């Protein structure tokens, strides 16, 4: 059912990249245009919609009060979930999350978690008993390639936009009060994804590039330019030198994007 790409087009894409060019006119390390709208879902505690070219991802956050994990009794809980709804692509199917949506959610989760983007200590209400639980739901509306970077951006956009309702604790039960405070955010990680096509790296692959790529590499970079999460994907490989090259480019691109978004 997957949209199949012809051998001819495949060759064409690879040959262009060989020359440092891409079918849609971008340079090898150029992102597509990034549009971000925050607060689009009033019912959600936070939300952001990111368009990366024609790729379209909506993220909503919900706040609940629950128990901490036994091994982190003084920290709030972050739960990231991704849905590749069949509306978004002819290759997505309804049903429980498959390996692709689980991998996407876990990559987004790691970028946020490992960079310590959320100040989870501030989400503790009563150690070991009550903490704030942050649900981040990634909802893909149109898939035109590089869901990882779009989802990671939309997730951070939604978190930056998330309001925690005021509450008080009475007899061990949390009561919601009027008003709210901003979710405490410490870091703004940005994820940069590469495709390896014909021995070259290209940044932010769109759908047709993903269909011909050998392998994929996603690198999350924090505000200080440190690497905080990596995921290789796809059925190909990378030479060690290429990985180091990608890490360097990712650092620059993340800085560029963070600047552009004012993060």
């Amino acid at each position, binding site marked *: 059912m997957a949209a199949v790409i012809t051998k001819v087009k495949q060759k064409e894409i690879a040959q262009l990249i060989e020359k440092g060019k891409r079918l849609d006119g971008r340079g090898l390390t150029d992102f597509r245009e990034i549009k971000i709208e925050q607060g689009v879902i009033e019912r959600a505690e936070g939300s952001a919609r990111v368009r990366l070219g024609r790729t379209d991802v909506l993220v909503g956050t919900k706040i609940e009060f629950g128990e901490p994990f036994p091994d982190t009794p003084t920290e709030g809980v972050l739960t990231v979930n991704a849905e590749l709804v069949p*509306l978004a692509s002819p290759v997505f199917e309804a049903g429980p999350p498959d390996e692709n949506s689980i991998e996407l959610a876990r990559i987004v989760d790691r970028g946020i978690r490992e960079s310590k983007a959320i100040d989870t200590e501030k989400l503790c209400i009563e150690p070991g008993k009550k903490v704030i639980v942050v649900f981040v739901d990634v909802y893909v509306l149109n898939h035109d390639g590089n869901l990882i970077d779009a989802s990671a951006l939309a997730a951070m956009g939604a978190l930056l936009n998330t309001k925690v309702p005021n509450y008080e604790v009475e007899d061990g039960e949390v009561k919601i009060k009027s008003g709210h405070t901003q979710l405490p955010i410490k870091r703004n990680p940005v994820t940069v994804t590469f495709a390896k096509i014909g021995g070259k790296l290209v940044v932010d692959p769109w759908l047709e590039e993903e269909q011909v790529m050998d392998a994929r590499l996603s690198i999350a970079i924090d505000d200080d330019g440190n690497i905080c999460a990596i995921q290789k994907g796809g059925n190909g490989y990378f030479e060690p030198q290429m990985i180091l090259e990608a890490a360097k480019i990712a650092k620059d691109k993340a800085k560029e994007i963070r600047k552009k978004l004012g993060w």
Partner: protein
Amino acid sequence: MTDKPEKLIDKKGLRLDGRKPDELRPIKIEVGVISNADGSAYIEQGKNKVLAGVYGPREVHPKHLALPDRMVLKCRYHMAPFSVQERKSPAPSRREIELSKVIRESLEPAIFVEYYPRTMVDIFVEVLQADGGTRCASITAAALALADAGIPMRDIVVACAAGKAGDTIVLDLMDEEDKYGTADVPVALMPNLNAVTLLQMDGILSYDEFESAVNLAIEGCKKIYTMQKEAIRRKYASAKEEGEE
């Protein structure tokens, strides 16, 4: 969480959001919003935000479900986890499964299913934000997505609810009226054929009240129908413009 309001209709006969009993919520419709889908539409009705996409006619999957004399129509109504007050689990609820069925059965009467035997058409509805009346907004959007996909139809199906809030028969119930009102009557219509393709009711109505509610809902449907056609016209105008550039 919204608390129960003291009154749904004030002394002047106006509703919580200032509407008159027979007034629709603000509606915004857009056709052709998902580039991957064969047809798509987006609707905002009050705070409802609903996206509908259509894929097909395409191969039936799995193959043994193919029908020799007609297309197979499938429909999935689904709510985003963040679309409602309390986070909704992504697994389909019983409510979503029922609504998927009634929405499909509200659209099927309009489709010339016999034109494309051995094929399948998938309708996917995603509720991004819910505010009462999502099934009607879903039908209105899904019918446009079908039209946008070029599926041959007898008419564009359109849907709207009427109901009873306090003692008044009102049009297009919003969340609070749905929850604290006396009755809710969602109706889907093919206006040109005067054919009701969806009818449900919750609550308590006398026969006369029911008659008024059905008639009011049909009036509402007809108003939205005009907006649907306008949205299609805009889409084709802009497509034409792009083509001419």
